């Protein structure tokens, strides 16, 4: 009953989204004041009904209503309550519902902040958001409804993919979606500006905080996903250049370019059409990612085979939204050109290079992601593109970008020049070089040639970002929030670069087969296998090994890696044990029983890997400082309502659902099995996630 109500609620949400789109777009166009006035109510109503639909589905999960097919396929009575709730976004249908919920939360936030916008402009923004919402709700109802019944109902369900039974998974998809979908607001602002044919640059000022918030969420979401993959998959990787990861990374790269070009447009009125194009592209890449992941063209294969309408539908949606926006761009952009000049060494030109390089980087990722598809299309055979392509090609635009970041922060607008900061920058470059050389040759040793270069840039960016705060501290003046946020974000970038550099150059991993009492040497660390025992978890059996790690004869870690077999699905999963510290992680993962008491195991040493996620979080924090700092200054539209709206996970009705195939590579096999392959994966074929 509750489930049927959920379905009705979603249908009502569809109608309201339609009303929101119609009144929002037609109201200002036909100068109907009352139509315009109806838009915020429609948007709020839409949110309420989407939330009710989500609540109904969560209710079905909590009460173990296996007569709902989606629940039967993704939950089980043995599943702890917490995971029964997060299972709501464990597969395709529920994650689409989460997508819609997040979109309606952003919409609600726009409504709340819309009093700072001209009335008609706000109506148009909400109209575009309503159109998006309409498309996705229709998609969900037509092809991916999670409310379908399964009669006769099974006594118990198939359970959630074990890989997804993890606390980080609970927050990862909603946060990632908050970023992914958040770019829809930038998109809507860009469309509204183009519809109105605005020649001013006020829209850039309005759009900026929304873009920065979405960008910060996306950074957090990507970092969380990477962290989750790292410890959950158990093989020590933190980034796989998997299509699903790329799908979230491309919008982030373009989003980064967008926040920088927005700065130019807002401050100087330049790059207007380019900024619009970036805003359209960032969200288009989000949609494209959704298409690639959902249609099964690249990843989850089976969802397409099971339901070809899904791929076609998203493609049509893509066509309408992106095609429409780009057509509008083609018509409006020529009128928006501005011809103000700027010096070669000005802030503007640094930001221009930033944009060019980031766009190239996103293009590199896009090309690599689509290459298998293109090669298939041209009948060149199947092609697999991985780290050997991505790593070097990605460095080409990114290395110069890092160098420019250190300098660009101190370039002046318009007239240009670095006079004040030039000497400090040179000094700091020297210091950075020394620090990098000491790190590369002294601390970590035997570096690859690029290591000192990348490390120098990393340190240089951090030091350069400190100049401004220190100057303000010296002069005892208040550092503006936006500058503080910018400095913090750049420090985060430097930290990230340092982490990536050393974890790539100095990690050690070894696969060994050990009997109890034997040890293996990994770099300076000795891993000793003390034996293992069978243990029973809440919904799995496991074999748990005991590994002691010593360094110079002193014990530094006691690790308990597990190999789990989940009861319901029979899947086997490797749960790595990780001893984390700021300087290094030590990992042990159980492989297979190779007989005679011996187990194959993988041991790893990963220096500074924490800096990768820590850096990303600092970047996100910097973004948030910009957004909330602005808010304190007064009437500038800010995404204030958003964070409070998206955070409360697992708290009943607003607890959103999220992503079927979380950002990471693994789920392609097991998750697809579920959403597509009726009946799910066979038990006992196991280990797909960890294999």
């Amino acid at each position, binding site marked *: 009953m509750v489930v049927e109500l959920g379905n009705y609620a979603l249908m009502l949400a569809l109608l309201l989204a339609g009303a929101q789109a119609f009144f929002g777009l037609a109201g200002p166009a036909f100068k109907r004041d009352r139509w315009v006035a109806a838009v915020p109510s429609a948007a709020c109503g839409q949110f309420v009904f989407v939330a009710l639909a989500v609540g109904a589905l969560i209710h079905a999960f909590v009460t173990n209503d296996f007569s709902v*097919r989606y629940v*039967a*396929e993704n939950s089980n009575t043995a599943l702890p309550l917490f995971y029964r709730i997060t299972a709501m976004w464990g597969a395709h249908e529920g994650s689409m519902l989460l997508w819609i919920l997040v979109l309606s939360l952003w919409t609600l936030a726009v409504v709340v902040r819309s009093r700072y916008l001209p009335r008609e402009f706000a109506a148009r923004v909400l109209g575009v958001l309503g159109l998006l919402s309409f498309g996705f709700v229709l998609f969900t109802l037509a092809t991916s409804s999670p409310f379908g019944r*399964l009669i*006769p109902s*099974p006594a118990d*369900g*198939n359970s959630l993919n074990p890989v997804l039974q993890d606390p980080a998974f609970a927050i990862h998809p909603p946060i990632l979606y908050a970023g992914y979908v958040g770019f829809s607001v930038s998109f809507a602002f860009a469309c509204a500006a183009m519809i109105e044919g605005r020649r001013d640059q006020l829209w850039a000022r309005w759009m900026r905080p929304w873009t920065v918030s979405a960008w910060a969420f996306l950074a957090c979401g990507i970092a969380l996903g990477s962290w989750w993959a790292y410890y959950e998959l158990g093989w020590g990787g933190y980034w796989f250049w998997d299509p699903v990861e790329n799908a979230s990374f491309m919008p982030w790269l373009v989003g980064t370019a967008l926040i920088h070009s927005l700065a130019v447009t807002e401050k100087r009125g330049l790059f207007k*059409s380019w900024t619009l*194009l970036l805003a*359209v*592209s960032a969200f*288009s890449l989000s949609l*494209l990612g959704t*298409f690639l992941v959902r*249609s*099964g*063209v*690249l990843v989850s*294969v*089976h969802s*397409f*085979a*099971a*339901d*070809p*309408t899904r*791929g*076609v539908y998203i*493609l049509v949606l*893509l*066509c309408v939204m*992106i*095609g429409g926006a*780009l*057509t509008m*761009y*083609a*018509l409006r*952009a*020529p009128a928006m050109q501005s011809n103000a000049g700027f010096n070669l060494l000005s802030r503007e030109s640094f930001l221009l290079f930033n944009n060019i390089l980031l766009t190239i980087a996103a293009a590199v990722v896009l090309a690599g992601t*689509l290459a298998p*598809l*293109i090669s*298939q*299309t041209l009948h060149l055979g*199947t092609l697999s593109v991985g780290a050997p392509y991505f790593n070097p090609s990605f460095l080409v635009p990114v290395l110069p970008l890092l160098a420019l970041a250190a300098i660009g922060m101190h370039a002046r607008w318009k007239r240009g020049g670095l006079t004040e900061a030039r000497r400090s920058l040179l000094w700091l470059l020297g210091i950075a070089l020394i620090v990098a050389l000491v790190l590369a040759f002294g601390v970590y040793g035997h570096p690859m040639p690029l290591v000192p270069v990348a490390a120098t840039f990393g340190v240089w960016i951090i030091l350069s970002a400190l100049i401004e705060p220190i100057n303000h501290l010296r002069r005892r003046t208040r550092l503006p929030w936006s500058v503080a946020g910018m400095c913090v974000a750049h420090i985060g970038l430097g930290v990230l670069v340092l982490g990536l550099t050393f974890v790539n150059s100095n990690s050690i991993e070894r696969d060994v087969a050990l009997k109890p009492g034997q040890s293996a040497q990994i770099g300076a660390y000795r891993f000793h296998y003390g034996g293992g025992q069978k243990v029973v978890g809440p919904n799995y059996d496991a074999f748990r090994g005991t590994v002691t790690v010593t360094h110079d004869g002193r014990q530094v870690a006691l690790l308990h890696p597990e190999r789990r077999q989940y009861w*319901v*699905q*029979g899947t086997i999963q490797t749960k790595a044990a990780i001893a984390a510290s700021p300087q290094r992680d030590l990992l042990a993962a159980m492989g297979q029983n190779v007989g005679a008491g011996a187990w194959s195991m993988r041991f790893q040493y990963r220096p500074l890997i924490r800096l990768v996620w820590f850096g990303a979080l600092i970047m996100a924090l910097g973004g948030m400082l910009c957004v909330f700092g602005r808010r304190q200054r007064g009437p500038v539209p800010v995404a204030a309502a958003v964070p409070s709206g998206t955070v409360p996970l697992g708290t009943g009705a607003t607890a959103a659902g999220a992503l079927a195939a979380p950002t990471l590579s693994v789920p392609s096999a097991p998750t697809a*099995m579920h959403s597509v*392959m*009726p*009946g*799910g*994966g*066979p*038990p*006992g*074929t196991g280990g797909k996630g960890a294999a």
Partner: protein
Amino acid sequence: MKLKRSLLPLAGFALLLVVLIVGLVHSPEKDIIASPLIGKAAPQFTLPNLFAGKGPVSSAALAGHWSLVNVWGSWCVSCREEHTTLLMIKQQGRVPIIGIDWNDDDADAMQWLQRLGDPYQQVGKDPDGHVAVDWGVYGAPESFLVNPQGMVVYKQIGAMTPQIWQSEFLARIGPAAPGGATSAAAPVVSTAAGSGT
């Protein structure tokens, strides 16, 4: 001139769209899912009978008439969904259903058949999935239509429904003829979701 330049993004998008459409139409996965077995002789197998005491179940049971080979397991939700359809097929009596109980617990499987009814002429148990691998099984349920010459004619991935039975299976078997003689359907390569919109 200016308009032309601003058209570039749209042109790029159109190009991308072409790639995506072609990708969708020629989804590489279709080839994987369309069983390579179609048009070929059904893999030979001999499995112990699920019901101890009855003789082994082998591919010899497929010879000389149309048959339906159904891969299932008591752990599989969609198998339960298609169960009613299988019982209906049994009642029609057009073809015998040979069950392969895949990766299952014997007691669970027998209890399942007792409780829900047994649509199978024979059920072989394949606890390690060796036979399922030979048949290229991806997940359960899957159903194979084998013609009187012992050739796999069609493969259905996912739950059998009365519509699919009608449109994909009965259509290939042909009209019921007195005496059980049926026309041999030509092997057809088709995807699992051939019946989708």
